[in-house]
């Protein structure tokens, strides 16, 4: 198992009898307890977790509760701009936040591969600690299993998030209305391009970095200005094209976007050109798309641009009554074409 660990550990690794994960670390005995006490607790320390009961017991303020779960199996686990740890926190925080909810708590389940260097686990937990602190959430219960070497790829993480939705919000992919403006919070395809260029087999170097970030602060800024926001979603797998198609189908509307307004960094664009990928189909981990009533669009866009994670926000297009269920792009040449959903993973082309 060779994992390249980025430099700059901010906190030294705890001293233990073993350097790597053993099957016994998952067996519930002394080594399991040591893993919890030396690795997990110091990172996620909070009153609910520290009770070490079999369950977390929480009080929630009144309101509807949003729950979301996601599993993270990214390879490589360390990539430019982030790692599986902050991705696991941000990904679930964002899924909860896209309902307009304020994310409060996360659970975390770990599947560790026998032989995983404890230094790797430590580094991932440090990332999760930093990401949870940035997003303002507590990790309140968790689980660890160890599987034999070869039965998983280093480590897999599942997180579940819980948040409470303010009573006056009603945000859903099914709520788009003709006339709404479609807002996008920043440059597209950063995460997917960073991952693809670091995968084994791609030798060209690149300085692309993932955009992984918690979006709950941005969502709060937007819903404060405009509680009438109709829909929010973060365009992760399948990219912007997938999210817009989901919107169009769920709300039985058409969506028209404008090619020349799509924000993309030149390095990302170059990588996509070389690999033959359509950036509209490439994953993002720190961007959101909103459907906003037209009269509020300018105000919401201005609020987004004031937030560090929305500096490059644009009005990408609008919702139409025509072309129900379709996403149509007005190209730079003034022609129109369909933006379809990706079939699966995009395959690099021959020539």
């Amino acid at each position, binding site marked *: 198992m060779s994992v390249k660990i980025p430099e700059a550990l901010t906190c030294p690794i705890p001293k233990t009898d073993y350097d790597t994960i053993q099957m016994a670390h998952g067996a519930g005995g002394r080594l399991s307890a040591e893993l919890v006490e030396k690795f997990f607790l110091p990172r996620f320390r909070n009153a609910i977790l520290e009770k070490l009961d079999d369950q977390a017991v929480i009080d929630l303020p009144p309101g509807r509760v949003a729950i979301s779960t996601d599993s993270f199996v990214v390879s490589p686990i360390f990539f430019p701009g982030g790692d599986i740890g902050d991705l696991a926190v941000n990904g679930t925080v964002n899924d909860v936040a896209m309902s307009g909810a304020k994310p409060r708590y996360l659970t975390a389940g770990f599947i560790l591969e026998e032989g995983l260097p404890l230094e790797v686990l430590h580094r991932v937990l440090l990332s999760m600690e930093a990401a949870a602190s940035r997003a303002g959430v507590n990790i309140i219960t968790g689980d660890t299993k160890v599987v034999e070497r070869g039965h998983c790829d280093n480590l897999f993480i599942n997180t579940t998030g819980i948040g409470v939705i303010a009573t006056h919000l009603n945000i859903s992919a099914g709520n788009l209305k003709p006339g709404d403006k479609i807002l996008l919070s920043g440059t597209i395809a950063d995460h997917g391009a960073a991952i693809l260029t670091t995968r084994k087999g791609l030798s060209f170097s690149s300085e692309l970095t993932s955009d992984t970030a918690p979006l709950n602060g941005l969502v709060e800024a937007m819903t404060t200005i405009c509680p009438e926001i109709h829909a929010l979603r973060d365009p992760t797998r399948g990219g912007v094209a997938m999210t817009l198609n989901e919107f169009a189908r769920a709300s039985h509307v058409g969506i028209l976007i404008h090619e020349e307004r799509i924000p993309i960094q030149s390095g990302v664009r170059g990588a996509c050109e070389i690999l033959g990928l359509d950036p509209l189909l490439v994953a993002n981990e720190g961007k959101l798309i909103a459907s906003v009533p037209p009269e509020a669009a300018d105000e919401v866009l201005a609020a987004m641009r004031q937030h560090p994670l929305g500096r490059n926000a644009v009005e990408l297009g609008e919702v139409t009554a025509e072309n129900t269920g379709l996403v149509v792009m007005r190209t730079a040449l003034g022609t129109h074409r369909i933006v379809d959903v990706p079939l699966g993973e995009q395959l*690099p082309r021959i020539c």
Partner: protein
Amino acid sequence: MKFLDEFRNPQIACQLLQEIAATVTKDWVIMEICGGQTHSILRNGIDQLLPPHISLVHGPGCPVCVTPLEMIDQAIAIASRPDVIFTSFGDMLRVPGSEKDLLQVKSEGFDVRTVYSPLDALELARENREKEVVFFAVGFETTAPGNAMAVRQAARKKISNFSILVSHVTVPPAMEALLSSPENRVQGYLAAGHVCAIMGWWEYEPIAEKFRIPIVPTGFEPVDILEGILLIIQMLEAGEYGVKNQYNRTVNREGNESAQRVIREIFQKTDRNWRGIGTIPASGFCLRSEYAQFDAARRFSVDHIQTRESPNCISGLVLQGLKKPTECPVFGKECTPAQPLGATMVSSEGACAAYYQHQHIKVTTE
């Protein structure tokens, strides 16, 4: 981005369209050879902008599309061996064989991998001496030099567990075959820019002469394609024929001579079966006899495999420019990118996939 933005510039595109409209007086049929050009035309909606006098038909220049079914079945037979690491460019993995595709072979537990270069496959062979590493060498003249280089290095470094399954095709014989057909409608060619970057355009001069048509090596961006169309229309309207080069930032008459040299050193010409079109004499490359030890079809004795196509697929007519994908009765119904009946629906450069992705439904515009 330099060499890209200026060739996507809407103002320049608009000027070219005006020039085309001012030049054209009669109906003309132009074929773009390369699937990359087809994709760009549909993606940018260039067909929507041209005057009605001009019909674009889509050529056979998609390597995934013209690779015959029996080659896919041979690849699947080789990949389904436990001693083999089968490597391929990504596009080929989803092409349906008679019973399954290479991605299904992978899901059955066999070792099928995407590589970005045949030299990566050679490296895998060096690292895994106990395995047979096979590379699926498909494509036109564009991929031939890299594949030839991998075989040359394997021979020099004595990497005996490396071989390639060769299904190389070449463009000029196909252009000639299409023009010779009694059903031919094509009056001018946009030749494939990338192929010409390797081979130059000297090979097209006798074809232009023999069939008295204009041939224009052309790039892939909207401005490239519109310039190429303008050059062809100017020649057609003036009654001229011959080769004129649009893609001069990349292509010259002689091409890349060292690439041509390595192709000649490793490969020789052979007859090839083009999927949907049939056998075209001297239209492909196979390994020279001195490199026959690197021929995977011989090494694994799969060269006897023969197969039949789906009777509902009209991809042969599409690849010859005789039908549009949307004229196919199963287009978008039984045949979609998720369940392709023919290879033109699989590759992102296949004409059917390009139509399905970008234009399968008429959109309403204000």
